[in-house]
């Protein structure tokens, strides 16, 4: 369950990285934002589930597009140092978090149950149907994204622009459009993740920060910028965490995740797959 | 002075430099020519330690410098300039040259923190020497400008100034005349001769034939990662392979 959520976040990181060579620190807060949006639509506006999630996705997509067009592009155009762009995304995540506090307050919200029954029995184990739904939807989202990127003309042009923007420009591809769509998609993925995780863990301001960092760890482990590596990395992080919580102590599950991340950054920084990490290359 | 022996390097299956050997005589001007992509800059990167060859050896004054990191190579006495200018662009011209002396100076952090006499004297010497070098290259008037505000030609000169600051025995110049007009090229030629007169050995990669033919004592020609010819300028100019690969066929 948690692995598939990390997967959605990690794919978002990878998308952005492969398209712009940038690291966005906003993914976690976008997840939180998505969860709050979902909560608002589903609980307070009493909209049906499907409509709520669609609305959330649509709004989150727009948020991503907005971030790219009004902040990131400005910085890239001004030839700002990469690190300033990273800083901008960090600043943005603080703004998002505190904006959410302004709107929704800092309480923990319970997402209303989506299914009537409490548990579903699979073999001998009781499983929460919401978790199953989350995994299924996450999986479907990944499939759709895979299909979109590989089988559609626009998806191919997005991959092309990510690989070699200069050449893509000479191919009559509007690179700025593929870039903001990428940010939109990444943001939408975070939104879906937030919407899915809300009913299981509750909705609150801090929910995104840890998940965001761990999703990032997953992306690193999978080989930064590699969508499929990101998914594998997510399951590794998910498993490490579950085992730590079960056998060592749930307090240290975060510490262990960070240690795994640091170990990967130091020992195998290219991840299971390959990507550029060193300054001197 | 500098001896390259059977050096090989590959980039993903492609042999970028293939068993190249060459000798650079002390205090000579030696040129390396060939079409774009022939492996000249790659060879420079090998000599200056940016790349480590798969096999072969590089000898400097009789000692192998293979596998040295670039900063170590600089300390042994080989300095270089870059084809696509690599200056410290946001700091002043004189500071660029002061940094160039880094490997020849030795004041440490504690001398710095307590400004010992030694450190103060060294600092003054560094500044004076930097100024001398700028004078020599005709850049003195720009000493307080930021490096990036210089014209293209002057940026190339500053690269040379910074390299000279490390008092090299061998100076590698990677396309120093690129983007210069005829007058600037003329000045550059004079400058290179003057540097030679101070006892520095010069290895130069250049496309401008006029410059190469009038400066170089020895010319090596590369194509496709291999050395295809070497000799005096006029010998090379009349070499069939060279004409075929580089200078152009009828």
């Amino acid at each position, binding site marked *: 369950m948690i692995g598939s959520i990390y997967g959605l976040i990690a794919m978002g990181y990878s998308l952005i990285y492969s398209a712009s060579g940038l690291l966005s620190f906003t993914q976690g807060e976008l997840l939180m934002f998505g969860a709050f949006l979902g909560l608002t639509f589903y609980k307070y506006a009493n909209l049906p589930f499907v409509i709520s999630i669609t609305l959330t996705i649509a709004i989150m997509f727009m948020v991503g597009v907005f971030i790219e067009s009004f902040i990131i592009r400005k910085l890239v155009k001004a030839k700002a140092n990469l690190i300033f762009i990273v800083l901008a995304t960090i600043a943005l995540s603080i703004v998002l978090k505190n904006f959410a506090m302004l709107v929704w307050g800092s309480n923990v919200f319970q997402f209303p149950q989506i299914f009537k029954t409490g548990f579903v029995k699979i073999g001998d184990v009781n499983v929460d149907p919401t978790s199953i739904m989350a995994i299924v939807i996450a999986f479907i989202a990944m499939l759709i994204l895979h299909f979109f990127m590989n089988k559609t003309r626009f998806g191919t042009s997005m991959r092309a622009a990510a690989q070699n923007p200069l050449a893509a420009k000479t191919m009559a591809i509007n690179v700025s459009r593929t870039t903001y769509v990428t940010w939109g998609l990444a943001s939408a993925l975070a939104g879906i993740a937030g919407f899915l995780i809300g009913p299981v863990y509750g909705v609150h301001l801090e929910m995104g920060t840890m998940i965001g960092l761990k999703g990032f760890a997953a992306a690193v482990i999978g080989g930064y910028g590699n969508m499929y590596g990101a998914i594998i990395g997510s399951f590794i992080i998910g498993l490490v965490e579950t085992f730590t919580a079960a056998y060592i102590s749930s307090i240290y599950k975060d510490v262990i995740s960070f240690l795994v991340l640091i170990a990967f950054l130091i020992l195998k920084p290219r991840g299971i797959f390959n990507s550029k990490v060193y300054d*001197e290359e | 002075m500098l001896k390259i022996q059977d050096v090989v390097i590959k980039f993903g299956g492609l042999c970028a430099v293939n068993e190249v050997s060459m000798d650079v005589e002390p205090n000579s001007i030696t040129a390396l020519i060939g079409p774009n992509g022939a492996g000249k800059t790659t060879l420079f990167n090998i000599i200056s330690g940016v790349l480590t060859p798969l096999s072969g050896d590089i000898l400097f004054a009789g000692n192998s410098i293979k596998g040295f990191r670039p900063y170590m190579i600089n300390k042994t006495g080989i300095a*270089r300039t870059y084809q696509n200018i690599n200056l410290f*662009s946001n700091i002043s011209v004189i500071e660029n040259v002061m940094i160039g002396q880094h490997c020849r100076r030795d004041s440490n952090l504690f001398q710095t923190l307590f400004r010992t006499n030694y450190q103060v004297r060294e600092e003054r010497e560094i500044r004076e020497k930097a100024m001398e070098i700028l004078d020599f290259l005709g850049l003195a008037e720009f000493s307080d400008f930021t490096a990036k505000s210089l014209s293209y030609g002057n940026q190339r000169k500053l690269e040379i100034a910074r390299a000279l600051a490390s008092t090299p025995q061998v100076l590698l110049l990677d396309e120093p005349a690129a983007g210069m007009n005829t007058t600037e090229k003329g000045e550059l030629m004079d400058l290179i001769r003057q540097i030679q007169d101070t006892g520095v050995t010069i290895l130069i990669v250049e496309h401008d034939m006029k410059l190469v033919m009038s400066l170089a004592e020895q010319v090596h020609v590369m194509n496709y990662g291999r050395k295809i010819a070497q000799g005096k300028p006029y010998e090379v100019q009349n070499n069939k392979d060279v004409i075929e690969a580089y200078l152009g066929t009828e």
Partner: protein
Amino acid sequence: MIQKKMKYIIVTVFLLALPLVFIGNSYFLLLLCTGMIYVIAVSGLDLLFGYSGQISLGHAGFFAIGAYTSAILSIKLGIPVVFSMLFAAGLATMFAVLIALPAARLVHHFLALITISFGEIVYLFVSHADPLTNGFSGIGFIPSPSLGFFVFDTNMKYYYFLLVIVAVLLMFKNRIIKSRTGRAIIAVRENIYASDGIGVNVKNYKILSFALSSFYTGLAGALYAHLIGFISPESFTLNQSIIFLTMLLLGGMGNFYGPIIGALVLTLGTEYLQVLGNYQMLVYGTILLLIVVFIPSGLIHVVNLRNLRKILHKRTTAEENDDNA
């Protein structure tokens, strides 16, 4: 030259006299002391980010190591505070070297990430290692530093104590920057390939700047612990690292005055914005975003001191470049 000396004298007299104006306003003095501690911490961050070009989002971690180490050593082992502070800064430096050894090679965003992770680990550690750090309840009754029989136990005394330390540390920073070592650090920021090619051992200087930087920030942490007398994990979150960065960027990095201006303006400014309550971080975030997007070189370049000075003193360009190096 005389004018320069005059300026120093005026500034010194002003700084010495400042607390006298606020006798009785202990709260303001506390604020001023906090601001000065931030000046140290942010100057440290400046050495790393502003001069060597390496980002750290984990400086709250070094701040925490400094604060906790000094507090624990002085309380549990009874080590004199001045020594426990130095030891604490040394420990922070050691951790920085340990991090930098492998991390200094990483590109910016990975470095950002690894330093965040470091900061988070330190935070999680101090929150949960109860026997040592007392967990979330924090450590109280941290003693004040003393020299001989003189104890710096009031905010006024602490102010003068800090004034000396800040002056020495800033002087050291300035000396480092205008030296062979400092130039090598700047070279690394400007162009890694060229630095390497011109004889600068890039890796060593990256590690060195990490070490110097964390010494400053670690010492600031220790000074903070002994000023407030109480520390708890919540002062050392990622938010604190971001506050350091915001101060640095607001003031202007890679610049002598930048960290001073940034740290003081934000410390005093946000204190007076207390009405904002919970929304303090919203303000920080917004400030940071606006600076990054609109004035990445910081306040120092908006209020261009160089130009101002040029008008006032008609100094030569050479000296100006010197100041700005």
